[in-house]
């Protein structure tokens, strides 16, 4: 399951953000935690998706950009999580957070190339919060809540390959579009795809490399379990050796040694 966002069709009604808050039972009253210099509100623990407003250089291109987790194909957050609290759901493609497994280390906040995961700083037992792509709805075959609430057709959900095909068809049929599907290759590709008629850099999109973040560490982190096992085996060997040396020495000098220890004690 993937979503294609056609930025040119968004009118900024923010119905998607309301649908998200309703479906995920988020707090409407919570004040925005992160407001950028340009006045746009950033994601926080009660805003799993936000709409950001951009005006263009000559104030003639009013564009609204929906921001939420992009659900990477190779999620850095999931690879950073040592307790497997963030997992990529193979069936739906959603990168899902399981609070019961979370230890609260917040490595995922640091790992994400888009700074998407946020933390419930006000809670006594805080959790990480981020878009779940309505994994329960999606696994039933429904569209995410935000997509089904979109009136103008700016959000479309469906199979990733088909949406990619559609995105390129739209770009090819209309010369106003930038020839770039954001999310097709970014850090290895994502389930959320964006097309736009304004360069993505002007709309607050981060210019990231096409190399999956996980690939930087995979080559050596994948050897960690083996190394750990070898190291444990090595230490066990030394421990056993020392134990044997001790035991043998005790058998030879048993009475004196005991006397020495008594004296020292």
């Amino acid at each position, binding site marked *: 399951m993937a979503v294609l966002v056609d930025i040119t069709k968004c009118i900024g009604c923010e119905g998607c953000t309301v649908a998200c808050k309703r*479906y995920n039972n988020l707090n409407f009253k919570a004040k925005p935690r992160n407001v950028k210099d340009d006045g746009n509100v950033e994601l926080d623990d009660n805003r799993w998706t936000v709409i950001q407003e951009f005006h263009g250089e000559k104030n*003639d291109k009013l564009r609204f950009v929906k921001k939420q987790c992009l659900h990477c194909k190779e999620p850095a957050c999931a690879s950073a999580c040592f307790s497997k609290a963030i997992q990529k759901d193979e069936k739906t493609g959603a990168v899902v957070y399981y609070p019961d497994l979370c230890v609260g280390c917040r490595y995922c906040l640091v790992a994400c190339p888009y700074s998407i995961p946020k933390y419930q700083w006000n809670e006594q037992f805080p959790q990480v919060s981020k878009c779940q792509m309505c994994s329960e709805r999606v696994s039933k075959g429904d569209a995410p809540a935000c997509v*089904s609430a979109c009136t103008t057709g700016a959000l479309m959900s469906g199979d990733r390959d088909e949406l990619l095909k559609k995105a390129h068809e739209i770009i090819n049929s209309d010369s106003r579009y930038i020839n770039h599907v954001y999310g097709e290759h970014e850090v290895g590709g994502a389930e959320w795809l964006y097309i736009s008629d304004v360069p993505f850099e002007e709309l607050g999109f981060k210019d990231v490399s096409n190399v999956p973040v996980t690939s930087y560490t995979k080559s050596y982190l994948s050897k960690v379990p083996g190394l750990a096992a070898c190291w444990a085996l090595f230490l066990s060997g030394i421990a056993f050796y020392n134990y044997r040396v001790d035991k043998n020495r005790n058998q030879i000098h048993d009475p004196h040694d005991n006397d020495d220890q008594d004296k020292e004690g």
Partner: protein
Amino acid sequence: MSNKMSRRKFLKVVAGSGVLGFGVMASGCKGKPSGGDGWVSSQYEGKGDFPVNLKGRVAISATNPSIERDDEKCILCGQCVDACKNVMGVYGNYPLPLKQEIACVGCGQCVMQCPSGAITEKSHVRKVLDALDDDTKHVVVQTAPATKVSLGEEFGMPQGTSVGKKMAGALKAAGFDSVFDTCFAADLTIMEEASEFVHRLTKKKDEIPHLTSCCPGWVKYCEYFYPELMHNLSTCKSPQNMLGATIKSFYADKMGINPSNIVNVSIMPCTAKKFEVGREELEVDGQQDMDYVLTTRELAVLLKHKGIDLNTVAEAEYDSVLGESTGAGRIFGATGGVTEAAVRTAYYLATGSNPPADLLDWKPIRGMQSVKEAVASIPGVGAVNIAVCHGLENARQLLEGIKATGSSKWQFIEFMACPGGCIGGGGQPKSMDAVEAKKKRIEAIYKEDTGAAKRCSHDNAEIQSIYKDFFGKPLSEKAEKYLHTTFVNRHDRLFD
């Protein structure tokens, strides 16, 4: 201290829970993912592609001067989209991607349709209360004709109760320094607009059809979607702003008050008025005509805040000089009212005598039909074809027809943004049976007209005196300065 934990025992527990946790994780147990424990409206259940008639909501910019929305109350029912698209012809009638702004004419019909009360007017109540408490300010208030037949509903009175005098009394009790009547300004508007229409009919035929301009929702709609018709709009300001400009000039002079110390408040059935008061074109001598607009609903809030009950408050007359009104001024609040009032005075201006009885009870242009047509025979001018249109989607269809044929068969067209005219405005009390409420309010308005001693704007003694003392005559240089305006082409904010 039998449960005292040794260091060894503590380390065992920590290591044990670690191993247990690792076991749980490794075995694939993961519990419930976060989120998904709320609800969404039923039309969003399922795959999201079920063809429902209504979904989503309209976009409301944070800088919108007329309306705002509380997301917590929004249930995404889609009623606002219905109002904006099917009643007002705004939503969906501009191209995407957007250009400079989110199109909104400020009519407030989405407010009326919103079942959960999420969309409301942008409140000016606090600012008006502050002005009332400020002793250095002279706070003047005016009340629109349509509010006089609807305010009672907010206090439990039956629909269609005329409460003009009670409202004047309540406003005086609330501490306003002067209470004037927008119906007076409606008469003033008719003097200017009827003169302008007769002038256009006889001398400036390229400005025919004459389009009314007292509805700020319609004016902004015209500026957005039909800029080529802007020169057909009457240059008259709306009654609200005519009175505002008169108060800050004529009245301020007369009373010896510095205009900058006057705070002009109006009670309007309308949310678009909140946009209108901020228009730069309406400024005279660097001053805004009007300062704050309260909708009928906001006035109810203000009166209740002050502990004033409309049921028990003493009646009062509107203050003199700008308080007398005729039947013609009072029917401004209903669709067709402006036309009827204008024709009465145009007849007088053309012939020198008051119109016959059938023009004083002009049935063809009354009622809720979307487009009403009539012919007025005015001796000396001839037959004047008139159309009356309310609801901007109806206006759009009518204007598209004119655009397609290239000419208009009507010489005078009245446009009101809201269905039913101002009595159905976006600032009016909400009710469960809106259709019935509109009918009753219209009946009440025409009852006030037939009950009036004077039925024509030009018979208004205070109007006659203000022309004598201040403006000279309709369309004079002074009248042009204070009572007329220009329009702004907003087409390129939406279209390429």
